[in-house]
């Protein structure tokens, strides 16, 4: 098959940039742990409120530098009393749903987690600035979807 000379240059240049780009993304993802939220743990969606850690949602301190926030999402709200966490510490969010798919999204951060019934979504995040952050659901979940929100306080 005949390729025009400029076309060869164009394709070689394009493919080379592609390789560089994907390597950067891959290395940053896997060696620096910059991966999006996820996780492979499962849960019975009908027994969420009886299953640890969701039987006791809210903030708990794991060690000096790590906190865990456990949240149960449902139409149309989040069950997690008094979300208050410190800035500068690693916060591990664990979320699941008792009904349909939702999201747990904290405005102005990179916390943007899909919440799927039967699965537990995990994300680790460290807040830099204190303040009151808006939490909202950005996956359609029913009539009240646009009302589904909450707040987390970072001190």
């Amino acid at each position, binding site marked *: 098959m005949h390729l025009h000379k400029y076309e060869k240059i164009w*394709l070689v240049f394009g493919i080379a940039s592609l390789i560089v780009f994907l390597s950067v993304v891959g290395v940053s993802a896997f060696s620096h742990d910059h991966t999006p939220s996820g996780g492979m743990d499962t849960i019975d969606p009908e027994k969420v409120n009886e299953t640890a850690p969701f039987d006791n949602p809210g903030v708990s301190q794991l060690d000096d530098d790590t906190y865990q926030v456990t949240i149960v999402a449902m139409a*149309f709200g989040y069950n997690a009393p008094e979300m208050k966490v410190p800035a500068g510490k690693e916060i591990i969010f664990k979320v699941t749903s008792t009904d349909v798919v939702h999201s747990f999204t904290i405005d102005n951060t990179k916390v943007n987690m899909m919440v799927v019934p039967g699965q537990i979504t995990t994300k680790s995040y460290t807040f830099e600035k204190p303040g009151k952050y*808006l939490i909202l659901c950005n996956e359609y979940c029913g009539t009240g979807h646009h009302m589904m929100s909450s707040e987390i306080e970072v001190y």
Partner: protein
Amino acid sequence: MIAVKDRKIALANIGVAYAAFLIGTLAGLLQVFIRNDALQLPAWLDYYQILTAHGVLLALIFTTFFIFAFFTTGMSKSIGTFGPKVRLYSWVGFWVTLFGTVMATVMIVSGKASVLYTFYAPLKASGWFYVGLALFIIGTWISSFALIGHYMAWRRKNKGHLSPLFAFMTITTIVMWLIACLGVVATVLFQYIPWAFGWTDTINVELSRSLFWYFGHPLVYFWLLPAYMAWYLIVPKLLGVKVFSDSLARLSFVLFILFSIPVGFHHQLTEPGISNFWKFLQVVLTFMVIVPSLMTAFTMFANFEISGRKKGAVGLFGWFRMLPWKDVRFTSIFIAMAFFIPGGAGGIINASFQLNEVVHNTLWIVGHFHITVGTPVAMTFMGLTFWLIPYLTGRQFTKSMQRLGFVQIITWTIGMLLMSTSQHILGLLGAPRRTAYAGYNNHPSALEWFDGILTSHVTMAVGGSILFLSAMILMYIVIMTMFLSPKAERPEDFVEFPLAESDKEHTPKFLENWAIWVGIAFALIFIAYAIPIGDMIQNAPPGSKGFITW
């Protein structure tokens, strides 16, 4: 001019496409006003019902029927009049697709299926909604097999020859569509329908999502490839040149089959149940489509330059002024291509693994698909409509229609620039998609989003209104050229099908060896999906019952 009986099939398809376009764009107009609290809906109508209708009617119905109209016309033109069987099955396909469409639409309008066009479980619509969807897909399969039959008959008669480029590209698109639909058919037939009618109690949610997106991404290429066909085959004719390279065009199309399917996880990057390894593998495969995309971009610029030089252009960019700007069939598609540059760049951002979480499910995404499917694809279809309908009806495309055509594409351009820019920025600021008016109790962060000039509620509403106006102008052109414009009588009044010549003398034969391409496609699908899907089935949590939360 193609046979009258074939023209009827094409016209029926275009008619349904534009009926869907009319209702769909009206829904779009309502959405922009509801979103900024300027419009209160009556109690029997809900924002999400309207949004479901908008997504289904424009993204699924308008595109699919238009595509089959284009395919029917082009196949009849390039490889000959349909035989009785092909014609029969094209009609059966049309009616089944339409029946499914009507069934799903009735369910949406009656409020029994406000599940949006992605219908994610465990939101549970009426079982008839899923039956409608299944019939829609099966109908498109029947029409697809009719066209494949027509193509095979041609190949039997022309042993050892490559098919004309239009036929080749049509079949490539159809092959991709058939493979892609396997996912949605599997989930709808074996998961949703038994569950929605109560034959099974629960549904495996993560599996249903993955099967949906196995279909959802190639769906995007099902819209895009027919637009590319116009770019590869119609545009050169309007420019007065031949197809730049027949073999390159074929190669890029088969690469699209390979790399558009095993990539659905890039829509599921922020969700649980799929390990990072498989997400990343599919991200890498996603980026492979850059190769055929670069080939396409090169071809387009080559066409422009060759045509400009033929007309005497000098200098590095002299060809630009020589393009046939006064021809609305060309200018419309040129604008469509221009929109695809930022559209494609946005796609790269969306698919970039960890960057995805910045934009996932924000208004950025809505901005993104309005400058990919909503303009590059839709405006290419508009550019085709300007000659396709008069070609099929034998009416004239009058001077005043030409002028109106320009008004239409320019208003669409302006409206879309306003609306999509504001959606992109709002999304970056964090505003979510798929939401009715949401002040979040006047939370300061939510108020901040709408502070800028470009992100104010006004910009999106003005953009949306201009778009709707443009859509109505297009509807006027469609109705005129369909039923009312004067019939062409003198030969020069007839509208032509502008199909460029393609020189296939040097094209290698293996490019039309389907066993190779379908084989590689399935191998890639197997590599990308077998293990993670197996895992979802084997290690599934207890399933979910259905919920009706609207």
